[in-house]
């Protein structure tokens, strides 16, 4: 009497398909990842619990590095660059800096502005590779010669009607006076809303915000 054969199934699964999926996803993530361009001015930003992602359009970025030097830059989009040109032209006119047309174009292409208004023609002739944290920065140190006021004035003119997203990116160890003078420049031009660039951080447990988040309430800005 012959027993009916019980088919012995292998417990091994074909991994090929899974492997395909894994590597498809992997290549997708690698290709879509935008690498952060290396920054000319290195800044270590502080952490905050804010969950709001920093805007990327209509950006006016003011960088405050660890030595208290202040740099001015705009967003990467084409509109932002056009605004920068408008800002530079209006400053050139109102402050008699004496920038030529090619100087303005060079400064629009420059990653940031890091000199006083009077030295702008020199920065325009610099190679972009040379523009780094060694530049003296925009003078804001005292209230009498706070050139950030002039810059912000030009910004409000360029963005007349619309609102720029003013971002302040400060270094952890930057001292308060520089920050105070930047804020003073904002206030003078009635730019009363700005945002500070930070790194995300988790909300500490047991705090009021944590409880609110647990209840499902949305964070207020």
């Amino acid at each position, binding site marked *: 009497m012959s027993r009916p054969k019980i088919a012995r199934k*292998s417990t*091994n*699964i*074909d*991994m*090929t398909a*899974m*492997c395909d999926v*894994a*590597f498809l*996803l*992997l290549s997708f*993530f*690698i290709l879509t*990842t935008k690498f*952060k361009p290396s920054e000319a001015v290195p800044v270590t*930003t*502080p*952490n*905050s*619990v*804010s*969950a*709001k*992602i*920093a805007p990327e359009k209509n950006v006016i970025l003011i960088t*405050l590095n660890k030595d208290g030097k202040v740099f001015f830059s705009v967003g990467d989009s084409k509109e932002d660059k056009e605004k920068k040109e408008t800002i530079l032209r209006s400053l050139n006119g109102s402050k008699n800096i004496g920038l030529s047309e090619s100087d303005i174009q060079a400064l629009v292409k420059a990653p940031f502005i890091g000199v006083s208004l009077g030295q702008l023609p020199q920065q325009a002739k610099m190679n972009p590779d040379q523009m780094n944290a060694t530049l003296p920065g925009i003078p804001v140190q005292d209230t009498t010669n706070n050139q950030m006021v002039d810059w912000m004035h030009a910004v409000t003119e360029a963005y007349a009607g619309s609102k720029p997203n003013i*971002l302040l990116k*400060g*270094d*952890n*160890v*930057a*001292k*308060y*006076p520089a*920050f*105070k003078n930047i*804020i003073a420049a*904002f*206030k003078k031009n009635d730019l*009363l*809303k*700005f*945002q*500070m*660039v*930070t*790194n*995300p*951080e988790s*909300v*500490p447990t047991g*705090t*009021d*915000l*944590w409880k*609110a988040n647990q209840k499902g309430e949305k*964070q207020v*800005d």
Partner: protein
Amino acid sequence: MAEMDTSSGGGHKKGPGVKKGKKMSTRVDLTPMVDLGFLLITFFIFTTTMSSPTALKLNLPADTKDEKQQNKLNENSALTIMLGKDNNVFYYEGQLNVTAGSNNFKASNFKDIRDVIMQKKARTDTTFMVIIKPTDESNYKNIVDILDEMRINLVGRYALVEISPDEDKLVKLSQGGAAPQ
């Protein structure tokens, strides 16, 4: 199927005297490769989401010289926090009162200030307000940290104010006493 050639372990014998034919499977076990793939995926997912910076909003009060337009501060419900050098924090509740008999000027640090804020918040009504006064020696991180603390404790009313000379003097005097964080 992706399986290792395990027949040499003595799976099925073909009978006595029958020589085992060398039948090497061309299949490779892909499990480790899948593991590696997913490991890399998780790595990329984490690194991409972590790098996007966030923004902390700050609204500045307009400078008004007109006394009537300025918000009147309820003195009892205010908590004033001063930021010194080396991450030192000082605070007082209500009005500053440093006399021989009473002293409400206290030292703290960034760890303990949360409890101070929470307790004060629980004790006072909705007029609770925090006044932040950074000294010239405090750094940017301290300011963001304390603003963050406002967010964490859901303090709706807070202001960044210039420090007065008296307070500045007090902070400088107490600098040595407070333990740095």
